């Protein structure tokens, strides 16, 4: 006895065939979700006690990164400025600004400002700022154009594939050490050549390979060993 009409055959075939696509689509959606700014916070400004603007301070006033992030050249941790650093200037200028009240309050009471961490790696990753600075990785290579960020957000996904992108081919990103803190650094091109060791470079790969050699970068095998970042 025929329960189903013949036409159901087509439907079931289409369903079986379609299931592959549906599953693939779900998988794709999951992966995209995992990489989306919703999960990684890339490009999303986080709530902060005071609306500190890197654009104004670093870009507009031209304050060097290291004025606040003092330990970036010697330690794994770049350092978050103590309230005192803010007050170095703000005891003189904008002394009455309402936006700065949390800062003054912290200074008066001795209680720390509680910021929300922006560039937040998982706890099982042991990243070290000092060695990246030393090997010619620019601040904005990872942190983006901080000098154009009115409110701070993380520029990259901070996921492992993003780290490995550079660890597998560091020559793609390196720049001369004296350009590390330069927020306006342009990658070498015919329009913006970069001079290093008296030689002019118009191509990132050529510069990168020379820097890898000059800065004694460990081999790609070395810097992709697990214990480089995980321990």
């Amino acid at each position, binding site marked *: 006895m025929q329960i189903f009409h013949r036409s159901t055959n087509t439907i079931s075939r289409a369903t079986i065939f379609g299931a592959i696509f549906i599953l693939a689509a779900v998988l794709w959606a999951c992966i995209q979700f995992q990489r989306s700014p919703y999960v990684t916070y890339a490009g999303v400004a986080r709530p902060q006690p005071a609306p500190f603007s890197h654009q104004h301070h670093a870009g507009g006033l031209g304050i060097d990164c290291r004025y606040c992030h003092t330990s970036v050249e010697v330690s794994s941790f770049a350092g*978050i400025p103590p309230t005192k650093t803010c007050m170095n200037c703000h005891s003189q200028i904008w002394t009455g600004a309402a936006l700065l009240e949390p800062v003054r309050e912290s200074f008066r009471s001795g209680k720390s*400002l509680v910021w929300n961490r922006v560039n937040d790696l998982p706890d099982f990753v*042991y990243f070290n700022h000092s060695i990246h600075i030393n090997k010619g990785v620019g601040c904005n290579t990872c942190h983006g154009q901080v000098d154009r960020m009115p409110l701070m957000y993380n520029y990259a996904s901070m996921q492992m594939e993003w780290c490995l992108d550079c660890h597998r081919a560091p020559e793609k990103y390196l720049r001369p050490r004296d350009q590390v803190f330069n927020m306006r650094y342009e990658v070498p091109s015919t329009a913006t050549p970069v001079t290093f060791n008296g030689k002019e470079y118009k191509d990132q790969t050529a510069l990168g390979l020379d820097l890898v050699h000059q800065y004694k970068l*460990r081999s790609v095998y070395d810097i992709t060993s*697990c214990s480089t970042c*995980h321990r």
Partner: protein
Amino acid sequence: MKMEDIKKSHHEDVCPSKKGKLDLDSARAHIAAVQGPEYWRSLEELAGSENFQEMLHREFPKGASEWLDTVSRRGFLRLMGASLALAGMTGCTKQPLEPIVPYVRQPEELIPGRPMFYATAFTLSGYASPLLVESHMFRPTKIEGNPEHAASLGAADIFAQASLLDLYDPDRSQTITNLGEVTTWGAFVNAIRGPLSTQKAVQGSGIRVLTQTISSPTLAEQLRAMLQFYPQAKWHVYEPVNRTAVRAGARMAFGQPVETYYKLDAADVVVSLDADFLYAGFPGFARYARDFAKRRDPDGNMNRMYVVECAPTSTGAKADHRLPMRAVEVEEFARGLASALGVNAGSGTLPGDPQKFLEAVVQDLKSHRGASVLIPGEHQPPAVHVLAHAINEALGNVGRTVIYTDPVDANPVDQAASIKELVGDMRAGKVDLLVILGGNPAYDAPADLNFADALKSTNIPLRVHLGMYQDETAELCQWHVHEAHFLEAWGDTRAYDGTASVVQPLLAPLYGGKSQLEVAAFLAGQSEPSGHDLVRAHWQKQHPGADFEGFWRKALHNGWIDNTAFAQKTVKFTNSIPPATKADDKVEINFRRDASIYDGRFANNGWLQELPKPMSKMTWDNPVLMGPKMAEAYKLQSKDGVELELNGVKVRSAVWIQAGHPDNSITVTLGYGRRRAGRAGTGAGFDLYPLRASGVGDFTTGVQIRATGEVYPLASTQGEQTMDTPTGARPLVRAASLDEYKKEPEFAKEEEPEPELTLYPGQKEFNYKQETYAWGMAIDMNKCVGCNSCMIACQSENNVPIVGKEQVIRGRHMHWLRVDAYYQGDRAAPRAYFQPVPCMQCENAPCEVVCPVGATAHSTEGLNDMVYNRCVGTRYCSNNCPYKVRRFNFLLFQDWTTPQLKMMRNPDVSVRSRGVMEKCTYCVQRINQARIDSERENKLIGDELQTACQQSCPADAIKFGNINDPASAVSRLKSQSRNYSLLADLNTRPRTTYLAVVGNPNPELES
């Protein structure tokens, strides 16, 4: 294994503790029938028992991987199914917002992310261990020895290192209490002020202060100031493990209580009379271990050590000749030795073996006059110390290897008499104000004095206890003041040679506790004493110059005060050797400080509780140690319950059969059976203090032993993680005598498989030789003294959790580095060897190829990396590890919630969770930091990079470094002919290798 056997073993109980007893009859039969292994770790192994065979083939002991909790297997699977589904979901959660909290005013010298190191000192029973303490953002995280201090040379003993855990112990006393109610320092001051002024009127005749042994110059000054303020007050001293006999011996010999210390690097012959000087707790241990080990180089001028001792110790294990002897007989031996060396000491002929041993020692000592040393143990009676002084003088050792100085102890009284007098005064109603500064006399005072009862039943109006814990004594005092930890308070102390150090705090008291110094100064009449000012003022008096500030800064920076070591003293031997007392033949009982928890003060320290004791590898317990023959005579087996009776007092305990223990004698260790220690210590082990009355001292005879018929579970790691050596393979321990070594320097070498030998043809080998660095380690077993310092160092550095007794029994303990003890020869007097076993970092690592998720992989520098966040816990790796060095988090062993413990952890190492495999990584966090620093400075890493175990080794037995650099210390060690790999025939090519043992036996005693 036959099919029936497999079936049988399936039906057996999965818990090994219930069946892990050694069947002595079958063992005896087995020993008679077959030749056992040359080197053995446990008596089970010697007997080749079935249990042992099974243990050998297992990754973890039987039952370790079973779910034995109250949840049924089915229930567990159901839970797991649900949690798996949820775990999948958690992968999708986004990272929560994480706060970041900067300083308001950042301290100038601080670089966030980099540790700082401060010099300070830890004091145990009056003797200092000079330290360098690592501090992350002003949180002490690791304690190391001060490498520039002559008493440490970089090493710190287990107690000093583990005291870090005490600082963060959540069970520490956190407030002042009055009759159990929380109160304040102000209330205490008000309460005590009245009675103090009343006492002033009667010159303080009702004031009694009880302290432990004190060497702190400032504290002694304050206590003396108090005695001046109240001339009739009395200062009593008591500690259950003390050096009263040593002082009494010195008084008898020289008329004054001099301190003796030894220069072991100048000694060709070392004789120990029951002295465990190569283990933590012996004053000067770190330096002695270094000096002793320096003379164990077979290519140099090797020393020879004889040890006459009762309970087997790690010092005895290092001896070239060890004579097991009841502690009561040691005096007779010393007399024999003295007579033979021309000291008039009465008779001294010993029967049989001891006499032969004695003659050999005498000959050796005679031919090394001025370059030998005789060290008596502190628990031997004064007569033995007098004899030792006489012998050292007769041999011309004084001034060369034996140095006399003023005592380090600021108040060297007879401590047993001191506490007896105090209790007498208490019972006579003479005491109005009793101040107990540290110590726990209600628990550890001589039993017949019944100190607890004296506190309870006499009407002392004011009893004050200062202590780190709300312990047995605090319970019986109206006032309890919480004591500051030594890393929280200012103080000073003296090392074994008298060198003074300022004890510098690393953080403000976590709970606002007071130090002994501050309380003493308060009693001496100062209203708001600050420890810092007191110590500074004391040293300003010693150094009144205008340059005091510089002097003070230098003392703090260096960790010691220049020119404070006591001058060598010339003393005259009065030649009054006490008459001989005849040792009786009744069963002897020895009371010894515990190898892990000392006298009980570290009872709540989990690191120490779980630290396997050097010889028995016992954790969490203090069974009665008994020789194998005696146990047979009593029909006792390990873990059998016994009742000990001494002078009418009965105590229950369990037996542990210890190879090498002399017969007709048993040894118990003190410090266990605490009632109010805290979550780790309360209830662990047996309290043996009730047997120790004032006349008893450290050993006595006449104890009666009765089996109770009970079986008591004991958690010994002896025999767990035994490496399987195939029949015919070379043993894991390789040893030779000096003569054999001279004839055949390559004795430890074996033919190793060709490196290319592989089942995967065509696979290209990674060439480690091309790399800048190839990390490797060499461990000189000839130097290793088995002191366990490396284990605590590793635990502290790598955030290794403790698991508890029950889990140790199941073989789930987590130590990344273990120290295996191997025995060789006769059960009654075996030789013993120590072998520290970290991860071998095999170049052909068997663990890596079986990991299904790539959580363990090789780094280019030869490290066998472990990626915790990738591990899914299949345990295939540990199953495939022939060295059994991998540890699995069967449960959530790490404490993730207690806030204090979070502060203690090393921020450079992941804290592992349940279901994750972990193991030694050669301290990769230190390697990475050193590499980054060296690359920044554009230089190569040299020997300044040390692993935690290497750093803490007092004997300098562990060398780590770059094996691609032929000049590195590790390369030089590995190039020696004694170098060999464990299980080399497996072609794992381990990076950790060992240097074989070369003993220096006396040919006259070799038979």
